[in-house]
């Protein structure tokens, strides 16, 4: 019995010490990590909607927040949302900036693990710029009759991105056109 207690005790000491140290280090790194994540999203938002200086959350699309961005005059500068759909081999997440007239301002692929050299080419600026100024009616791959020229050998990825953005745009238009911008219940997002 004593032997068992000793075993238990040693393990206890080790785990205690370990967890103590870890908790301490965690307390140091966690804020940085959180801040990183927030910054990353915010930077992405800023990037796709550079005119905006502040963002208000207005709704949710697939559990991701849709923001309305205001420019420095406090006027609506546009919206941002994260479009997401399963592509060739992964979920492709795109930060989309939308102008107030529901055209794409800019997009940024923020998460994907498509095939390097094929689907992964979607992160290239040349490709992302294809989407600028398009609305949901032409937000289709060329092969589907739209205006998005697909990446060679990666039609699936292209189609995924286009479709996800199109869905988002439709949704956005629905909720925004229904309700007047002023009436929308807005709250500052604190994250």
């Amino acid at each position, binding site marked *: 019995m004593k032997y068992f207690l000793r075993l238990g005790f040693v393990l206890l000491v080790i785990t205690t010490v370990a*967890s103590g140290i870890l908790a301490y280090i965690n307390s140091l790194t966690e804020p940085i990590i959180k801040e990183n994540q927030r910054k990353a999203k915010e930077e992405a938002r800023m990037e796709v909607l550079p005119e905006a200086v502040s963002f208000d959350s207005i709704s949710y699309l697939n559990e991701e927040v849709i923001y309305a961005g205001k420019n420095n005059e406090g006027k609506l500068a546009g919206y941002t949302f994260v479009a997401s759909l399963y592509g060739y081999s992964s979920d492709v997440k795109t930060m989309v900036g939308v102008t107030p007239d529901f055209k794409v301002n800019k997009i940024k692929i923020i998460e994907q693990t498509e095939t390097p050299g094929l689907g992964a080419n979607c992160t290239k600026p040349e490709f992302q710029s294809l989407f600028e100024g398009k609305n949901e009616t032409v937000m289709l791959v060329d092969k589907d009759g739209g205006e998005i020229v697909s990446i060679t050998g990666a039609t699936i990825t292209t189609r995924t991105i286009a479709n996800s953005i199109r869905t988002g745009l439709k949704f956005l238009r629905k909720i925004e056109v229904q309700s007047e911008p002023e009436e929308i219940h807005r709250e500052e997002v604190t994250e």
Partner: protein
Amino acid sequence: MELLAKIFAMAIAAIFVQNFVLARFLGLCPYIGVSKKLDSALGMGMAVIFVMTMASTFTWLIQTYLLVPLKIEFLQTIAFILTIASLVQLVEMIIQKTAPALYKALGVFLPLITTNCAVLGVAILNINEEYTFIFAILNGLFAGLGFTLVLILMAGIRERLERAELPRTMRGMPIAMIVAGCMALAFLGFSGLKF
């Protein structure tokens, strides 16, 4: 029906499309180490299926009811590996005592599994993918099945290669890697599979 379809899709993905070994690079040590004999491979495969399912279950519970409420998710790695290690050892001892026949067929492979990154991998993936309890368990099961499938196929091939006139330098590990590469090449055929 909806649920069944989802489970089916998950099974296909975990077993073929995102096979743990060939596409995700998890569990390679036993894949190379224990695939020399079909019998061993079968035993190992069964043990892995069992442990992966168990581990998925327990780690999910620990994560959801212990780490998350207490906000100590950073202890995930350490808690999971301790859980898996203890679980495996416990199961091993119990089987050894109560079912010697089963132990002979399966139990001897259990210790090897502790350091198999597929097990810890599936536990962490379950959390990352935010699976529900049932799906976490199923994911563990299917991932184990996928692992076992390629392990057994590999063992069959290696038993045949044992008697091939391989170039000397390629014997053993190198040819196993090459076969794995060819298998991965063939498994690319499953890529993009959707039902």
